[in-house]
């Protein structure tokens, strides 16, 4: 008989309630870290041009001279009202940054995830199936290398190689300026907008532009899938049910395909969700390297400008995405495996 504490609804409520302190701690950390860092938006943008008195005037007009606690509660109040505010450095509503640049980040991360799955899972399966062969060693080395190589390094390397040997293949941006101009924006996702317009040459072009950044980010993640899939295949191949299948005289290829591989993929599915945080952090650097117009590259620019409001807003959005996906994974896990609720 299950105890009350083990019920699924109660588990979900507990997990949802945990989000509140998590988000609050995160917002407070971001707020404090931005203030602890030397400088402010005024000195970052017009320092080295104006006198200290002129800069103080600008700080006052932005409200940066007010007590820290006042600024903190104003910030929290804005978040509670679902108002992320607007950037200090270019007066842009932060929600607009999320809407206008979020589509590009989403495109990049989804494409990278697809590449990671398409490359990582088959490679992991092969490595596990043919353990300790040359192929296994090669795949393992490939997995370690792609995971260990910094994403910006891989990105620059890919760019240089393609620039040298790739003919006219584009090395940066999300499309040519003319395509971005002609494709009417409906969803803020260029690829989807091009498809909705039925402009297939634009679709092809956008995919061309997408390939290098998605490959770079995808390679970073695929190392994890390779290792995880391989280990799971090794474990399942030694499982009792696999031995039993073999004992029943089922062909080895069918045993591997239907019993070992299928079961080996179950943990991989749950790990996909956990890679979101890594994908987003990798996207920040990938976007910067490939001039990809996503939220991540905007975040770096705003950090350099010490734009408190923008950085706080964008990180809040990133954090909420990661937290909500983690919650979703936890719920799915609880549904699949009741043991996690206890």
């Amino acid at each position: 008989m299950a105890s009350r504490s083990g019920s699924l609804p109660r588990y979900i409520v507990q997990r949802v309630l945990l989000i509140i302190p998590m988000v609050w701690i995160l917002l407070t950390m971001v707020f404090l870290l931005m203030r602890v860092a030397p400088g402010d938006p005024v000195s970052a943008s017009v320092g080295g041009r104006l006198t200290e008195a002129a800069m103080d005037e600008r700080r006052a007009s932005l409200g940066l001279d007010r007590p820290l606690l006042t600024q903190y509660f104003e910030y929290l109040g804005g978040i509670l009202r679902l108002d992320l505010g607007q950037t200090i450095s270019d007066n842009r509503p932060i929600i607009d940054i999320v809407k206008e640049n979020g589509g590009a980040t989403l495109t990049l991360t989804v494409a990278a995830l697809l590449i990671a799955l398409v490359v990582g899972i088959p490679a992991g399966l092969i490595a596990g199936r043919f353990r300790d062969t040359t192929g296994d060693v090669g795949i393992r080395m490939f997995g370690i290398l792609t995971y260990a190589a910094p994403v910006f390094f891989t990105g620059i390397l890919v760019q240089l190689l393609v620039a040298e040997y790739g003919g006219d293949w584009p090395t940066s941006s999300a499309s040519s300026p003319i395509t971005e101009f002609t494709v009417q924006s409906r969803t803020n996702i260029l690829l989807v907008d091009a498809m909705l317009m039925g402009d297939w040459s634009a679709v092809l072009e956008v995919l061309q532009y997408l390939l290098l950044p998605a490959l770079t980010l995808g390679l970073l993640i695929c190392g994890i899938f390779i290792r995880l899939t391989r280990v799971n295949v090794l474990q399942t191949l030694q499982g009792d049910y696999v031995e039993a299948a073999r004992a029943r005289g089922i062909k080895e290829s069918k045993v591997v395909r239907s019993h070992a591989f299928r079961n080996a993929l179950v943990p991989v599915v749950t790990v996909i969700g956990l890679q979101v945080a890594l994908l987003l952090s990798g996207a920040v650097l990938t976007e910067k390297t490939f001039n990809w117009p996503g939220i991540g590259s905007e975040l770096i620019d705003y950090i350099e400008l010490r734009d408190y409001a923008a950085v706080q807003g964008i990180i809040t959005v990133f954090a909420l995405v990661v937290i909500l996906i983690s919650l979703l994974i936890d719920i799915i896990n609880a549904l699949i495996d009741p043991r996690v609720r206890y």
Partner: protein
Amino acid sequence: MVSRRLLAVAGAGVLAASLAACGGGDSGSGGGGDAAGGGAPWVLGTTDTVTSLDPAGSYDLGSSTLQYQMYQQLLTIPAGSNTPEGDAAESCSYDDPTTFTCKLRPGLTFSNGNELTSSDVKFTFERNLNIADPNGASVLLASVDSIETPDDQTVTFNLNKPDTTFQFVVTHASAGSIVDEETYPADALVANEEAVGSGPFVMAEYQDGNQASLEKSESYKGPREAKSSQVFVKYYKEPSALKLAAENGEVQVAWRSLSPTDIKDLQGSDSVEVIEGAGSEIRYFVWQLGTNMGKEKAVRQAVAEVIDREAIAQRAYDGTVDPLYSIVPPGFPGQVDAFQDVYGQNSVSEARGMLQQGGIQTPVNLTLGYTPSHYGPNAVDEATELKRQLDASGLFNVTLKSAEWTQYQDLYKQNAYDLFQLGWFPDFLDADNYLAPFFVDGGFYENNYSNQQVNQLVAKEQGSNKDATREKTFQQLQQIVAEDVPVVPSWVGKNTAVVAPGMQGVEETLDPAFIFRMWTVSNEG
């Protein structure tokens, strides 16, 4: 090839299925517009960023570059010249040193069809001062006392002090771009998508941080008629990406800012041409007179005697910059190479004599500050090269110290460095802009330098509308600076662009004004 396309389309289907459900609302941007008129569109690539398309909300080169295309100013700096000429104004002149009057061209209209009158001009300047946006350039309008509009075509600025530089201020995109009083609120900035002007181009589409699309304005009246029907501006986050885009032909013009190494590399490329014009961006070292060594004039002069600017230009910047021998770069009326006049060729023995005469014991311990995060990676090379030169003289023992930009600004004011590196980009093309902000009572960098004669000479040149008087005063000021050495000029940059074959008119616009005049450029390739 067919199979590759099929694969791509299939992939797009999978991807789109994943993405479509997550799409945002209808932004309404874009437009599928067709470029009006003839001439091939072209793309300008840049690493500059844009703060705002509203002139009252920006004070940076990236914003100004677009504003120059979209808006008219009363006066404009024509290519290759230092002298303002009429743009929205037929003519402007000083009635006396504190009264500046402009007569507008007849029949001016904004691209939305509204008339441009003197009332719009008055509104523009008063609005900029009223908003005083923290990111804006209202500081440049400090000398405006009041504005009168006797009729629809005439506007008179009453200045609160004699200010000859005001004729240059009105050429500045952020300070002087004329906005429509029927569209722009008096007390708030407009959103970028609502920005409208009367310049040679109309903003057809703008995506923050990504790209801008400009189309030739059919209603523009003035000397800046556009030669191209459509121009795109593509924004790059990294110079390396911009370089690759130029090499690949993704942009037809790459302007600001490629690294010296990239420029050197592209000079050997067959696919693009590197064009260089005179620049106005400078780097210099500031003495902090609040430190024990900085206050010693003999030490300052000895460093000015030892520094080898040619070696800095070659070793730290691959020869992509020119040595600078005055705080005012060459090409400005009244400019003289004062440091060369005073110190001649760099000489260790002369420097030793200066230190001995000043009673300074050698080697002199100096702390040299620089920031790696604001002036590019070559700032480190420059500081290192200067240290090498000073140490090699045997007269100095230099310690290098660096700090991140925002922290650096506090440190140099707090006497953390005897000597520190800074850069300057002029607001307007007048020698005053290299002198007044620097040397009047310690300047904006607060280095404790104060010289009453300098203060008086600055006031004199600002109050005079006689070119000869001003030029002579500029020369005197540069001479005093070379003798007092509150700063040591290092180099002046070039205005460099990388262009694809067939691009015309780029060379024309590469001058010290640093206005990229897209209206002069056409794609004939």
